[in-house]
């Protein structure tokens, strides 16, 4: 079955073609069947190919469809590459993607652009699969840009509201800033290793580069630029919360489970390069740590249910970056997978809540919903405990691995570990704040659970995965350098388990018992300033607007009529001016001409005499 694995990205693409070329004329039932069915079929082929890959007991398998670009020394194939890491990614994308597609057939039913929605979704899945299956960086870049485009199209899906369009553009342009860095890194890598094939480039780099050399640092930093853009890490994180303007299944699929983790995938895919640049690798960890803390603080102050989840995504990806920074490559991928389970669950359940509340997203207008929405309540609780990483949930296993690796990392790991556990505390605090505010307290609005097999079915599967997904073994040992088993001492383990519990307890004290008047605290003086600072994600949006966007727009407006053109127009004006003066002298009066001739002669004679 392994030979057929090129079908995995191709089938969703065919789905996209069918849905696009029918221009929305297809009845919704068929559009839904094609849209979700293509992903299901793709998942089936992924399973078949994956099982024969694992059975074959090989480390990697590659398949060339055709030569894409071949000029001079440059040879780029349309080649797919399957190893342990891309296998896991392929399963997550098609598996979780399939569940989300099924959910979306229910969530989006009745939308006039139903078919367009699934067309974009299918295109996204196809591009994402190309990204993770690419054997060279150009093909990877193609998938990378493709998912960015789909993200753009889907954030702005409800196009009649110009604000959605703004959010979509912001997402695309900001990630493209990162992409530009990544592309430059790609050229640098090609110049220095002579190839764009990922495995060959890593092999050549290992042979030729000196550890910590300039080229290693430059290339890894540039690739990191692409990764932080796509994965919404500091300093390019401000687009992700705005991306929540898209329909909720999009937030679950693109802006939580798959696309935003592409940066993590990129760095782990090129991990050999990062090992050659230890400083940059450590920087990855530091970026992850700062991002996870910043996003945690910001999540604590948001009122929009989707925004809280968005910042929580930024924060969880921060954990993955932290893992990459301490060389726990496998743990990063592991957390990527468990995060896909529980965050997709949380987003989709949030979608159900939003449906039940008639598109209300403000958590302060919810409250007391656990009786009205029993399904959503339990599902959301499962997602939340996995996010908080209570023992034996999927999030617990992956997060514990990351923190343990950080603790044992030789230099500077301790700092990252401290940030990580502080973040774990924050996670518990904001997650249960969200949970308590939505499901407990005074009931202000009525909600009615919207039921249907396509809505609850996928959620139940995701809930099971969120609970027990931590027991799945991911086959990445052959890809990454071997890591020793970590067994932190009981003291540290107690802290790692205890802090989230403490967070939940404090959340309970504040939001259920009302021990602390938050409005008073956040309403005045220093508290208000701090609240504002956190709420605006440390003022970065404001800063970008003032430092980059406004001056640029001003400059563009200022020079709208092209200053260079005024030079040419100016020369035309000078000619015309001379022409006017000369034509003034053509009066047609004989005495004027006579006197001119006389004066002219006088001048000429004078010059002749003087010289």
């Amino acid at each position, binding site marked *: 079955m392994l030979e057929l694995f090129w079908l995995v990205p191709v089938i969703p693409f065919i789905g996209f073609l069918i849905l696009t070329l029918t221009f929305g004329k297809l009845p919704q039932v068929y559009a839904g069947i094609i849209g979700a069915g293509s992903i299901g079929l793709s998942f089936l082929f992924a399973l078949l190919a994956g099982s024969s890959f694992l059975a074959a007991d090989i480390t990697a398998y590659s398949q060339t469809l055709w030569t894409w670009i071949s*000029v001079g020394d*440059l040879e780029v194939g349309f080649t797919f590459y399957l190893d342990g890491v891309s296998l896991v990614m392929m399963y997550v994308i098609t598996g979780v993607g399939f569940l989300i597609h099924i959910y979306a057939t229910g969530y989006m039913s009745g939308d006039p652009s139903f078919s367009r929605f699934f067309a974009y979704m299918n295109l996204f899945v196809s591009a994402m699969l190309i990204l993770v299956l690419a054997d060279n960086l150009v093909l990877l870049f193609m998938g990378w840009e493709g998912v960015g485009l789909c993200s753009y199209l889907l954030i702005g899906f409800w196009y009649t509201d110009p604000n959605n369009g703004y959010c979509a553009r912001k997402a695309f342009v900001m990630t493209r800033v990162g992409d530009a860095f990544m592309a*430059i890194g790609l050229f640098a890598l090609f110049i220095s290793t002579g190839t764009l094939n990922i495995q060959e480039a890593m092999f050549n780099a290992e042979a030729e580069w000196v550890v910590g050399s300039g080229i290693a640092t430059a290339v890894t930093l540039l690739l990191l630029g692409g990764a932080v853009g796509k994965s919404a890490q500091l300093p390019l994180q401000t687009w992700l919360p705005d991306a929540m303007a898209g329909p909720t299944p999009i937030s679950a699929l693109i802006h939580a489970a798959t696309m935003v983790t592409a940066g993590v995938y990129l760095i782990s895919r090129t991990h050999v390069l990062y090992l050659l640049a230890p400083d940059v690798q450590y920087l990855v960890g530091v970026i992850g740590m700062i991002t996870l803390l910043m996003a945690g603080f910001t999540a604590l102050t948001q009122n929009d249910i989707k925004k809280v989840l968005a910042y929580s995504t930024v924060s969880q990806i921060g954990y993955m970056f932290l893992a990459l920074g301490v060389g726990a490559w496998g743990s990063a991928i592991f957390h990527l997978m468990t995060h896909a389970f529980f965050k997709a669950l949380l987003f989709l359940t949030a979608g159900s809540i939003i449906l039940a509340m008639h598109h209300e997203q403000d958590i302060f207008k919810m409250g007391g919903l656990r009786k009205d929405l029993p399904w959503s309540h339990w599902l959301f609780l499962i997602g939340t405990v996995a996010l908080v990483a209570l023992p034996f949930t999927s999030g617990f296993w992956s997060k514990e691995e990351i923190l343990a690796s950080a603790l044992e990392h030789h230099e500077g790991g301790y700092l990252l570990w401290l940030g990580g556990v502080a973040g774990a505390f924050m996670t518990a605090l904001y997650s249960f704040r969200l949970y308590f505010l939505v499901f407990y307290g005074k009931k202000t609005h009525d909600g009615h659970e919207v039921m249907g097999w396509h809505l609850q079915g996928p959620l139940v599967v995701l809930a099971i995965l969120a609970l027990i997904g931590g027991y799945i073994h991911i086959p990445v040992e052959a890809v990454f350098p071997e890591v020793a088993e970590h067994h932190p001492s009981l003291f540290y383990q107690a802290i790692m388990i205890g802090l989230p519990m403490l967070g939940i307890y404090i959340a309970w004290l504040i939001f259920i018992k009302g021990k602390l008047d938050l409005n008073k605290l956040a309403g005045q003086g220093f508290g208000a300033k701090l609240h504002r600072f956190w709420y605006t994600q440390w003022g970065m949006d404001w800063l970008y607007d003032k430092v980059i966007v406004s001056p640029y727009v001003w400059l563009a407006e200022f020079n709208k009529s092209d200053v260079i053109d005024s030079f040419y127009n100016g020369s035309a004006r000078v000619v015309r001016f001379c022409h006017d003066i000369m034509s003034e002298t053509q009066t047609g009066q004989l005495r004027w001409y006579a006197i001119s001739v006389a004066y002219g002669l006088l001048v000429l004679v004078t010059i002749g005499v003087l010289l």
Partner: protein
Amino acid sequence: MSSLITVHILSWMIALPFIGMVALAFVHDRRWVLLTTLATTLINVGLALYLWMSFDLVENGLQFVERMEWMPTFGIQYAVGVDGISLLLVLLTTFLPPLCVLGSWDSITTRLKAFMMLILLVEGAMLVVFTALDAFLFFMMWEVTMVPMYFMIVLWGGPNRVAAGLKYVLYSLTGSLLLLIGILGLSLQAGTFDIQSMAEHSYSQNSEFWIFLALFLGFAIKLPMLPFHTWLPDAHSEAPTAGSVLLAGVLLKMGGYGLIRFCLPIFPEMAHSFAPVVLWLSVTAILYGGYMALAQTDLKRLVAYSSVSHMGFVTLGIFSFNNEGVEGAILQMVTHGLTTGAMFLIVGQLYDRTHSREIADYGGLQQRMPRFVAILSLFAVASFGLPTTSNFIGEFLILVGVSYENFVFVALAMGGIVLGAAYMLWMLQRVAFGQPRTEAASKLTDLNVREMLTVTPLAFAVVAIGVYPGPLLKAMDSSVTFVVERLAGF
């Protein structure tokens, strides 16, 4: 096909548009005028495809060569032939005119026959420019292309057409004059008008500089390179749809073609010493064009400034003097012809409906015109070089080529690509999404079959080249290698 045609295939391709012009003189019915022109241009597409199929990929020299004495006293010949570089541009030149005819179907209401004749005249003259082996022939037809374009602008153009036409002619004539000086200088020194022999002659140090400069400026104005670009936005925005398509699609490419055909192989050493200036001007053009495009409120001006940016890539690639760069530049010329041609056709389709080019007059078109928006989006993303479109391949190869030379240019050019996304998506937002801002914009009808036929071949070509550029790259590979090898070692 009979051997009479296949032996003289280039001459037939060149003659066909002129035959079509003569035929048009005897046709009077509006429909038949359009059909005759369409048939003529389509037959030429067929001939061009045949030319491509029978083109020998391995041989680097000229193929399908035809020579005839023309003015023996001056050593001037009618000599045509194609190598891989010409071949691609010949394909482009034949591909666009039928779409121009389709695009003008309803929108040209006055003097239709004359307009169709001018389209054919441009096609015929352009085919000679791209196949001429004789510098005099090249120059003569270079001049001929200017005339129909001028009339298209001043007779069928927008409200400001006379000024725009004048500006176009003044710029073009300045360029032509320099080109004439350059070509005369070449032939006086080399004693021949044969382009290949010119390349084999060695020139004195002093004349080399001046001849190169004259030729270079002549080509740079046509391309146009910064700072000679200001005729382009005016000419584009005032020209009728077909005029803009031909202007952006093929006429600008004469500049790039000239650089590759004359400046590089004849004066490899001068090319090297000019390269730093040209490369800097190129990245400036990429950034400046993108920066100017963002501020435009007129759709056609926006596309025109994006052209300035894209042409910056062309010169960037040409002056990196390696296979990747030069092949990328040629591909970029083809691809720019396709996407920008398509953009002008699309804007023309909107203009036909509302008679407005102002971005502010649209909005929310997705609702009434889903097919239109789908096509517009495709070309918008192609324009900023999204992978799977042909633009990506061109820009990617150019950047690989220039990265061998200097990394600073790569970094700066990437900035231009980010700008490209910004202005194109903003345009898309204001035209296609949100709410309709005018009464007229809320009542538009979607593209009809003819309009879809006008743009879908371009859409297909852009994606096909983006996914499988192999045949085009292979076709020019040996010819480009030939040019690049001449440049090596300086």
